[in-house]
Each structure stands twice: as C-alpha cells, then as structure tokens.
C-alpha cells in the first residue's frame, strides 16, 4: 500500500506547512490582524535573537543549561546503569529494592523540586541532582528490563564457563541489554532536558535558557520568549539526533533486525 515517493517530493511536502505558517505569520503581522504583542514580526524575533546573542550572552546561558544537562545526565546515567545491573543480577537486591523503586518512580518528577531545593540548596548542585534524577529513572527501568530479558541459553553458557559476577555482567547481561539500555539512554536524554528547563524555572535564579524564557514572559517580550523556545527545541532536536547516533553506534555489532 505504501508507495515510495521520491526524496525531492517528500522534502517539498515537508517544508510546505512551515513556509505556509511563516507566511501567515508575517501577513497577519503586517496587516495588523493580530496584536503584535502576541505575535511579533519575524524581524522582531530575529532582532531579539541578535540582541540576546550579542548584548546579553545568549551563548553563556546556553552553555550553562547544556552543562547542567550533560552533567546531570551523565551522573544519572552512570549511577542508573550501575544500580540497575546490581538489581538485575542479584535476586536479593532485586526483591529488596525494586518494589520501593517502583513505588517511588510514581512520584512525578517535578514533585521532587521542593525537597531537592531544601536538601541541596540554591547552588548548581540542586539543579544537577534534579537533572540526574530525571535521567536516572528511565535508564534504570530499561536497563533492568533489558538485563532481565537476557536469553537463558546465554546465561547457561556463562554458568558452564564458570563466569564470575563481573564477567557475567560485562559479557552476558550488558551486551544483551544493549538495545534496551539505548532506549533508556534516549529517554534519559529527553527527560533530562525537560528537567533542565524545570530546574531553571523552579530552583534558584541563574543563567540558563529556562530563565531566559521566564524573564521574557515577565517582560511581555514575546520575541524573546520565542527565541528561547526555538533554542529549547533546537537543543531537544540535537539531543534526539545524538541519541539516535549513539544508539546505532552501540548496536552496530547487532545483526539488523526486522525493524
């Protein structure tokens, strides 16, 4: 049923709506149908971007947000994979900890903000801890599931070869959980970016893109808010791309499955 359309046609179709949107935007702005306070002209958005970039250290804000995001993600990811490995490999740890973990993960991420704020204060560490928590949860869940689903015959082989715990973890569980871990890492990246924005909204004021967007709203500067939102989207997009490349890199040794 699905016919393959040529790349050129798909591309033309893909950019139709965005262009249409931009045209409608510009026209409605020029003709004054909508209040420019709600919909600034494209030019104004570009001007705001230029202003933030040159006069107001937009790149500094961005690098702060990214550093928080990456630091939190790495901490959450490493701790998460380690934690999940222990749970998956040790029956006792699994039975002791997993139910509690499953209960705690039901608490919506943002609901941790007040406690994290009291425990870790107004410095960077509170924000990073929050981002780490955001990455931690999906990575643990997926790593755990992936390892629990390790094929029995492989585990048998490990037993026959008298692998010790470390060998079992590194040679059997980790490789067979790789696709699942990749999913977890992907989700972790998405959530940690959401959490970076959340941390900048709800924890102490500091440089960052989230703060920029909030400030824009407080100043009724729609152009500035739009610049911030576009950057949030661009970073989200880049992180997503990155996750895909990472996924295919991590899974490069696997035979192509019927995806």
């Amino acid at each position, binding site marked *: 049923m699905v016919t393959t359309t040529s790349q050129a046609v798909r591309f033309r179709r893909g950019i139709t709506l965005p262009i249409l949107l931009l045209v409608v935007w510009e026209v409605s702005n020029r003709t004054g149908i909508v209040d420019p306070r709600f919909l600034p002209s494209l030019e104004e958005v570009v001007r705001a971007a230029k202003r933030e970039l040159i006069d107001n250290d937009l790149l500094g804000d961005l690098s702060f947000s990214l550093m928080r995001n990456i630091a939190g993600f790495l*901490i959450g990811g490493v701790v998460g994979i380690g934690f999940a490995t222990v749970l998956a490999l040790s029956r006792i740890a699994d039975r002791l900890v997993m139910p509690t973990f499953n209960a705690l993960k039901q608490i919506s991420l943002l609901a941790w903000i007040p406690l994290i*704020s009291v*425990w870790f204060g107004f*410095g960077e560490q509170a924000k*990073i801890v929050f981002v780490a928590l955001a990455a931690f949860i999906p990575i643990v869940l997926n790593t755990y599931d992936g390892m629990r689903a390790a094929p029995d015959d492989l585990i048998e082989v490990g037993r026959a070869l008298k692998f010790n715990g470390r060998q079992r973890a590194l040679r059997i569980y980790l490789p067979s959980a790789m696709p699942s871990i990749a999913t977890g890492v992907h989700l972790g990246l998405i959530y940690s970016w959401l959490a970076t924005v959340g941390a900048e909204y709800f924890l102490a*004021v500091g*440089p960052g893109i989230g703060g920029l967007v909030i400030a824009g709203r*407080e100043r009724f500067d729609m152009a500035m808010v739009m610049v911030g939102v576009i950057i949030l989207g661009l970073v989200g997009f880049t992180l997503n791309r990155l996750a895909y490349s990472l996924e295919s890199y991590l899974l490069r040794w696997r035979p192509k499955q019927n995806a």
Partner: protein
Amino acid sequence: MKLTSILRLAAGIAFAGLLTISARAEDPLVIHVGYAAIGVDNRPFSEGTSAATARAGEFLEKEFANDPNVKIEWTFFKGAGPAVNEGFANDQLDFAYQGDLPSLIGRATGLKTKYLLASGARKPLYLAVAKDSGIQKIEDLKGRKIALQRGTNGHLAAIKILEAHGLKERDVQVVNLDSAATVAALTSKDIDAAFGDTQLINLAAKGSADVIYTTKGDDPRFGRNAGIIGRQAFIDAHPEITQRVVDAFVKAAQWSSDEPNRAALFELWHKSGTPVPILEEYFSKDTLAYRNSPLIDDLLTSQYAEQAVKSKEFELVRRDIDLQGWFEPKYLNSALQRLGLQKFWQPYGADGKPAAS
C-alpha cells in the same frame, strides 16, 4: 568574569558528582549573605533597605577589604523569604536580609537563627488593582483573584489588611506569584489585584494599574518588618566576624539615614532597576532615619510578637513561636557604641510613639 562563573559551575558539577552535602573545606572564609528579593530583570541588587545599601555600596566588602581570606558572596532570591529559609536549612547562608513572616516560620520550624538588627522594617505595603477591574476599595476584593507570594512578609501584611476590612484569606482567590510574575499578571489582567511595593508603584506610574490603597499613613501596625538574620552556628563559630558584619550593616544604615544622602541613596538603589522617582514616592513623607533604623526597639519587638501571634491565628504557622532569646542585640549595641551612634536613631515604643530614652 564569565570564565570564573563557568569554572564555578564546573566546580559545582564536580561537587554534585560526589553527592555529598558535607561542608566544603575552604581555606578562605566565604561569608554567604542572602537577600530575600531580587532586582528588576533578576539584577543582583535590591532597594528600599539598609541591606540593599550595604550591597550596592559594598559596605561588607569594604569592611573586609584588608582580609584577603574573607570573601563575601551575595545571593538574591526570586523566591524571597521562603527561599532564604531553604538556604538557612542546608547551611548555605550565614546571614540574610529576610522579612518577618518567613523568619518567624523558620523559627517555628526549628531553624537556629538570631535576629541581629533591623533593616527594611516599617516598610509600607501597596494594593494595586488591574485597570478596569472595578475594584475601588479593599472590601471589593471579595471573590476576586489576588496575587500574593505565600510565606513572605507581604503575605501576612496582606491578610492583616484584609482582616481589618472584614475579609478572610479564603474570601479571595489567592494565586501564588513572585514579584516579577505579579507585575506581568497584573498588566495582562490575569489577576485583579496584588499587594506589593515599588514594583506596583512603578506599574501605576506607567498607567498599567491603579494603586488604591497603601499602609503608608495608615496604622503603622499594618506595615511589614524585616531584619538581618544570622545563622546561629556561624555566629557561635565566628563571633568577631559577626561583629564586623553587623558593624558594616550599621554603617550602611547610618549612611542610608542621613537626609543629605537622599538623592545619592536613591541613585545607589537604582542599581536594582527601580526608577528613582518611584523610590522618591516610596519614601515620601518618611524620614530616612525612620525607615532605615537598625534598632531593635520596643516597637520592633512588639511588632514581631504580634506577627507571631497573628501568623498562628491565620494558621500560617502551626506551632507557637517562641521569640525568647531570638533577638540578639549584643552585636548591634556594641557597634552603636563604638561608632558613637547611640543617639543617632530615635527608638520607638510599642505604641508607635517615640520612646523617651
């Protein structure tokens, strides 16, 4: 400048990596000073208090200019007084300018702090309403949407004003917004009214809202109080440093109280982004010495005692607040004596009248 803050961020990351809350082992002593407000567009400055003068005029930095081992670090809180309490709770703040209700809440919750000197006490409060909201007097607020920042001294003051006009907090719809968000919401008419100070005067001056009431000239007991709060563990560990910090704040209060400095003072406070004419309006008909007095006089202590009772009555705190031993005038008195300022400020009695000294 940028590099150092990025380095600091990197240090913070390394620190968080260890996931420890233990105190950093630092060679130079960093005095962490908090301020329960933030300037326009998040400028790290404020206005209207002697603490704001100390910040903008670098009184603390000058006090320790010859001690390379002592560093001052200021933090301004968008989350105002409640955020300062969080800072005290995890020992990230040593001193802070904080309003009456949050410091009382902190005390009720068991924060070990001391009240060292007054700063920004006797601040008036303003009520601004959105254009075309039809609200002309406080009684009209019934059922309307009002912005407050919960847990700040403005919150308590607002409830007291409502109560004096036969309204309870439940009679209005309270939206929790910080100062900057309040300005935005009032301009866009998302809320009907808001309590606050300079940001509302400014809004009215720009024609985006109307100020319909102020405690200025009304019963002074409707006003708000604030002061410099110190963390007890820090004070006990560094009594000499504490004394010098108090000295610096007293000097700032003195400079802020000298009438010839009025224009220079507003110019200094303008660093917070608040226009000078707004500050002139905010301080009109008040002497600088009245508003910037650091004294822990009978008026102040009785005000705090009353705030404590009221906050219990309004269920803002759920336990009785014991003020016994919280006020620590030792450092203030020593500073006044050494600086020869014993007679500089007029103490007031609990009745709001000048006390015979």
